[in-house]
């Protein structure tokens, strides 16, 4: 069966003065209609760059060095700008962290919405306005007809993010990529936005990639998790299995470091050190300097992402290879 989205061995590099920096290294995953996948990692893990690569937002000096991005059968990695523009905001939409940066402050909400619609469809202003009102209603904006004539500053932070989501929904996209959509918002508003995302995916027609550093948020919304570290996928599988039984030492570290996972008041389990700078990624497994289970082989050779049937997921770690005979 054809997947909605299939990333095959994507490598994204940035050509800098002193050489190439690899931000995304050999990332592959698939997403089907109705899937909700969380792309998790700390800053510098390459999760946003992976998201950007899908809709061709990697700008120079960055480039997709190799790999294929199959979306509804088309390879987006080798598509020209013109063809990409037909897909962006149409079949694939993106939601960013800060709604104030995404919305144009000098245009009304209505103008921004009809602009998107008319870029992809040959429709009149009235038809476009009617569609915009419909989408604003979907994201529970009260009295949308009046709101169309207002500017972004007249809305609160939570309302703005709803409007950004309404714009993303305009063309009924098959895939929504949300990059830290609730990080800038308060908890009560975050809960509402997460509800909204779940509600929109409930139809089963849209795929969602939720990029975030917050594992608790991911566990509320997604059914699949991909954990990234220093540009590579370290663990990938269903949300429930990974959250309740993390296998990669980095995933274990991330989950154990959360307050709430331990007895209150006791010391938290910290991961020593920090994520390596992408220019000085350690040889072998990039996590080995911080790993409590580091072995000799980890410093010399990079582990490969393999599927382990008994754990129902893919893991990239020599510990697993030693314990089990992995099969790809």
């Amino acid at each position, binding site marked *: 069966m054809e997947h909605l989205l299939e990333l095959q061995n994507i490598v994204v590099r940035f050509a800098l003065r002193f050489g190439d920096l690899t931000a995304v290294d050999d990332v592959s995953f698939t997403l089907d209609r109705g899937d909700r996948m969380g792309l998790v990692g*700390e800053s510098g893990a390459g999760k946003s760059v992976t998201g950007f690569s899908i809709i061709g937002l990697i700008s120079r000096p960055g480039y997709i060095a190799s790999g294929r991005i199959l979306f509804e059968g088309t390879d987006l990695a080798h598509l020209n700008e013109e063809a990409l523009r037909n897909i962006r905001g149409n079949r694939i939409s993106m939601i960013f962290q800060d709604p104030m940066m995404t919305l144009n402050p000098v245009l009304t909400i209505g103008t921004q919405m009809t602009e998107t619609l008319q870029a992809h469809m040959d429709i009149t202003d009235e038809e476009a306005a009617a569609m915009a009102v419909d989408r604003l209603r979907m994201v529970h904006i009260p009295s949308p007809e009046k709101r169309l004539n207002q500017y972004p500053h007249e809305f609160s932070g939570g309302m703005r993010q709803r409007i950004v989501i309404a714009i993303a929904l305009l063309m009924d996209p098959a895939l929504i990529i949300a990059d830290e959509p609730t990080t800038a918002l308060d908890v009560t508003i975050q809960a509402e936005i997460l509800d909204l995302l779940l509600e929109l995916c409930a139809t089963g027609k849209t795929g969602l990639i939720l990029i975030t550093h917050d594992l608790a948020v991911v566990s509320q919304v997604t059914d699949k998790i991909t954990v990234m570290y220093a540009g590579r996928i370290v663990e990938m599988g269903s949300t429930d299995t990974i959250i309740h039984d993390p296998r990669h030492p980095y995933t274990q570290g991330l989950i154990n470091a*959360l307050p709430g996972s331990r007895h209150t008041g006791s010391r938290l389990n910290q991961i020593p050190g920090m994520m390596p700078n992408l220019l000085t990624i350690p040889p072998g497994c990039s996590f080995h300097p911080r790993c409590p289970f580091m072995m000799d082989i980890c410093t010399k050779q990079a582990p490969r992402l393999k599927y382990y049937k008994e754990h129902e997921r893919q893991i990239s770690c020599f510990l697993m290879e030693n314990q089990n005979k992995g099969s790809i």
Partner: protein
Amino acid sequence: MNDKKPLLEVNNLIKHFDISGGVLDRLTLEKMRIRMKKTVVHALNDVSFSIFQGETFSVVGESGCGKSTLGRAIVRLYPIDKGSIYYCGDRIDTKDSRAMLPYRSKMQMVFQDPYASLNPRMKVEQTLMEPMLFHNPSMSMGEARDNVAAVMEQVGVDPGWASRYPHEFSGGQRQRISIARALMVEPEFIIADEPISALDVSIQAQILNLFMDAQDDRGLTYLFITHDLSVVKHISTRVAVMYLGTICELAHKAPLFAHPRHPYTQALLSAIPILGFRKSRHIRLKGEVPTPIELPSGCVFHKRCPFAFERCFNEVPKLSERDSGTFVACHGVEEGKI
């Protein structure tokens, strides 16, 4: 805890910010008459609480609730409009800056953004030495260097890096340096304003551990200001929940998280995402947080409260003790309706 004398006591604190601007900005037309209008942000409205020696007192609330203003008003970064602040029984809000000096070395502050709070032109050593030499002018350079090295060691920054500049450190390391700066003057009380929100998850755990270790080693008292409820649940002794410049509930951590009494606390706690536990529903509040420029009459929360009744529209509820140690400002709770 009540038999102990409080380390810090804040009584009926009020802080308003006048944002009217210049004369032309103030002019408004009202009933065909030109009038001068004053625009005031009501950041803190009658806030009272005490912090006891050795505890971690957390203040939580959403953006704009006045929690940062509260922290800054206590160390007198902002002058207060009304109310009083006592430190170890001495009133400090009326002292002039010279008389304030001894208290300044006892109270220190750690800020949210470790990129903005360290002077980029000063070496780490200079940053750390400055407050210490200011408060102890007679200290020799040798002794000062030894102290700097000892504190750097304690916060987990290699003392060999003392002559480096802030930009050479990562975010987590910088936050360690800001904590070191606060520790240099041997304080008793530290106000930490969102000290880990700018950091990555794995680094947050490191910094929280550092705060807890420093508290064990030095017997510190913390006022911890944050919006992150899972952090609050982990480190606090007592918690104050703020909404629109007022404390709506103040309680020991365990009863607060187990049985929140105030409707706002209930909604806030129900909204926290919990790892691996998909919530069927959280309490949805009506509308949005009103602006602190025009405060609602009566209870500041009444417009969004699912339980609001007539008394809430007119009368401001007082923070009063319900169970031992739990204070709630709510007419509904007081009358046994909630």
